[in-house]
């Protein structure tokens, strides 16, 4: 969690200085709220009031992401550049670099695992749930296009042969791509069967559906 402390001192500057020191951060890493300016009182004796400030560590998402991923990349012996963008509460992290297929793993297995762990880490620090999408180059985008093509091809076959076809096991993200790409496709519908991680999409012959 983000640390926050309230400090009291003779002057505002002094209170801020003490608070930053205690948190061990610089001024640009902090959010500072002045609760009371304090006042010197008469001759510095009567009615003097201390200044009170509240200093909160600023959330540095980029740093959190970097600190989490870097030791892993080091072990994998890769150097990856990171590009982080936020979009409607969704965080997109795009990795690029030479020879970083190791981050993707078999059918994106490693990438999904890293994405899941990263989302747990990030959501420990944020108030609202942040959806995290980790991608290597355009792996996910290309994979989505491949799945959409597969879905349409299989759906055409189902509607032609009137036989249901069960696809290979996929993760929830990939199944969702199949389901949504066949919404409105004539004469088939889709549902999933089986338990994770062997849950599979069934493309079913359903005359009249999708109209």
């Amino acid at each position: 969690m983000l640390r926050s402390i309230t400090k009291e001192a003779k002057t505002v500057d002094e209170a801020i200085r003490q608070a930053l020191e205690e948190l061990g951060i610089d001024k640009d890493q902090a959010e500072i709220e002045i609760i009371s300016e304090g006042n010197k009182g008469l001759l510095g004796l009567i009615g003097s009031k201390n200044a009170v400030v509240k200093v909160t560590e600023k959330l540095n998402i980029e740093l959190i992401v970097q600190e989490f991923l870097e030791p892993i990349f080091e072990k994998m012996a890769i150097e990856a550049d990171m590009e982080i963008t936020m979009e409607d509460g969704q965080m997109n992290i795009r990795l690029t670099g030479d020879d970083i297929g190791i981050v993707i793993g078999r059918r994106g297995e490693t990438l999904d695992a890293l994405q899941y762990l990263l989302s747990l880490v990030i959501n420990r620090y944020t108030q609202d749930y942040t959806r995290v999408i980790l991608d290597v180059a355009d792996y996910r985008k290309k994979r989505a296009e491949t799945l959409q093509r597969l879905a349409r091809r299989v759906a055409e076959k189902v509607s032609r042969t009137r036989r249901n076809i069960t696809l290979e096991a996929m993760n929830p993200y990939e199944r969702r791509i199949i389901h949504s790409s066949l919404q409105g496709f004539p004469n088939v519908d889709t549902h999933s069967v089986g338990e994770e991680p062997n849950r599979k999409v069934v493309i079913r012959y359903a005359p009249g559906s999708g109209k």
Partner: protein
Amino acid sequence: MKELLEHIARSLVDHPEAVSVNEVEGEHSVILELKVSEDDMGKVIGKQGRIAKAIRTVMKASAIRENKRVVVEIIQ
């Protein structure tokens, strides 16, 4: 490998100071015994072991360069 598992576990738990990993090295494999605070067990295991599985997957991929098989065990 030990440091990496410690790093991942510490990033997930509420009591990072209680995280420890014992490494048992074999010829072709490494067994990593992960120990966390009792309160944090759920944070490294997850619903239906989902977090533990993700940790194992990442550890496995990280061990590829060393040509070793990594076994992560979470112990009480």
